[in-house]
């Protein structure tokens, strides 16, 4: 298999080239511009058969994606931050129509104030729209996740749109060694696209998107509930099969040195890479710490997380966005809720960190683990929700 040097954006564009979708409709936005810019180069050079629609906004991009997917095409796009927000009117329509659109999302802080760097506020703002959400720790995972998402979203038990995310600049612009697949291998892994409905099928004419009031709207939301529940097993199967074929297995979560850990750090995305280093370092000193990486945020792997934290005394839940609810970040809210029925549960602390790209360093993670050692010992947290690293 070819070893290549790629940034996160290049890796996602490369995955798109190998997938060779029928239609890509996109609009550029930092730091995701390169994903579709590089891909449009592949289109210009005739390396793909894709119809590339250069639209005038992200609202139009997602609208064109919905139109193309309704016509029975395999469709992809990419965006970030404000672009994702501009798409947001159309995102829940894509899930309601059960269109398996794959979106390369680069996490970037939402305005305002305007900022181009990483936090998770953009992706979290669209978490309740019926889209599958997978976070990548590095460029290799971004590449692998995009390929798996095609399989996952197109599975007959799912048929929902999905986004795989990288962290803006941290992953999107950093070059890494990528273990890529051969083009033919990608084709084999993702399989042929099978349209369920097509607005262009004259043999089976359909109506899509009709008005749906008190009498049927509720019923039409239920298939999304069911498909999202089904998605858990489908994601696991896609990740297992990927591991069997290519040696890199993926689950809903990843437990790193968590088996006998007394303290866990729970995080999404690139911060997990930083945390691994500190976990190894503290383990060397005999301190029982571990990392719980939440790879899939939608559907939320509540049961799996509860199990992974069942023997832990204290856990730090790391949120790279705030919900401004007074209840901490979205990951914390989900995990705290998931633990409600558990008699034995760890004491939790929520660290809202890294907003607008504020760096999270090894030293920061060490400080968080030190605080958690105290929490594990006393069974009490210093402060339930902390905005970590902000100047007062």
């Amino acid at each position, binding site marked *: 298999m070819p070893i290549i040097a790629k940034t996160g954006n290049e890796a996602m564009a490369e995955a798109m080239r190998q997938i060779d979708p029928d239609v890509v409709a996109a609009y550029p936005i930092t730091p995701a511009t390169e994903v579709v810019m590089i891909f449009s180069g592949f289109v210009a050079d005739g390396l793909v058969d894709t119809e590339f629609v250069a639209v005038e906004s992200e609202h139009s991009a997602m609208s064109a994606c919905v139109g193309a997917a309704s016509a029975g095409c395999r469709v992809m796009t990419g965006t970030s931050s404000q672009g994702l927000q501009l798409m947001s009117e159309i995102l829940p329509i894509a899930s*309601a129509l059960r269109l398996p659109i794959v979106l390369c999302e680069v996490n970037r802080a939402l305005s305002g104030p305007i900022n181009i760097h990483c936090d998770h506020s953009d992706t979290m703002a669209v978490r309740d729209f019926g889209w599958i959400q997978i976070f990548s720790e590095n460029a290799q995972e971004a590449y692998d996740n995009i390929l798996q998402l095609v399989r996952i979203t197109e599975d007959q038990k799912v048929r929902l749109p999905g986004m795989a995310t990288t962290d803006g600049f941290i992953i999107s612009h950093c070059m890494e060694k990528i273990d890529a697949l051969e083009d033919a291998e990608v084709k084999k892994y993702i399989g042929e696209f099978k349209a*369920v409905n097509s607005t262009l099928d004259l043999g089976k004419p*359909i*109506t899509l*998107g009709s008005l749906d009031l008190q009498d*049927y709207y*509720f019923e*039409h939301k239920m298939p999304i509930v069911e498909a999202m529940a089904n998605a858990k097993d489908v994601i696991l199967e896609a990740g297992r099969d990927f591991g069997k074929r290519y040696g890199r297995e993926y689950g809903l979560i990843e437990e790193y040195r968590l088996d006998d850990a007394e303290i866990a750090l729970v995080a999404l995305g690139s911060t997990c890479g930083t945390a691994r280093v500190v976990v190894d370092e503290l383990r060397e000193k005999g301190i029982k710490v571990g990392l719980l990486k939440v790879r899939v945020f939608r559907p939320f792997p509540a049961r799996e997380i509860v199990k992974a934290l069942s023997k832990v005394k204290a856990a730090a839940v790391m949120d790279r966005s705030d919900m401004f609810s007074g209840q901490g970040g979205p990951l914390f809210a989900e995990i705290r809720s998931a633990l409600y029925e558990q008699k034995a549960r760890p004491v939790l602390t929520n660290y809202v960190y890294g907003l607008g790209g504020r760096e999270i360093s090894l030293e920061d993670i060490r400080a968080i683990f030190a605080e958690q050692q105290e929490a594990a010992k006393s069974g009490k947290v210093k402060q339930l929700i902390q905005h970590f690293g902000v100047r007062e």
Partner: protein
Amino acid sequence: MKKDIGWKELGHGDSLPAGTAAEFQTGDWRSERPVFHKENCINCYFCWVYCPDSAITLDENKKVSGIDYRFCKGCGICDKECPTKKEKRAITTEAERK
């Protein structure tokens, strides 16, 4: 179509068979009623083209034959577009009597 079906029986992705508008009679919304006067009609088909609800009917010879009041919402476009002269109107509008 069957009424009040459960969510497990719904078509995939909010889809319905095409042409279900034929089962949805929108004529009872009407507050104004277009009236067709066959003797003045010049068969230009403007009303037939412009009607947003296919409520203009044609006879077996493809001549305009009237208005299907099951679907006519009384929007008035047919009257507005009808090019016949004032004294020999093919379509006029009157208040809907209920």
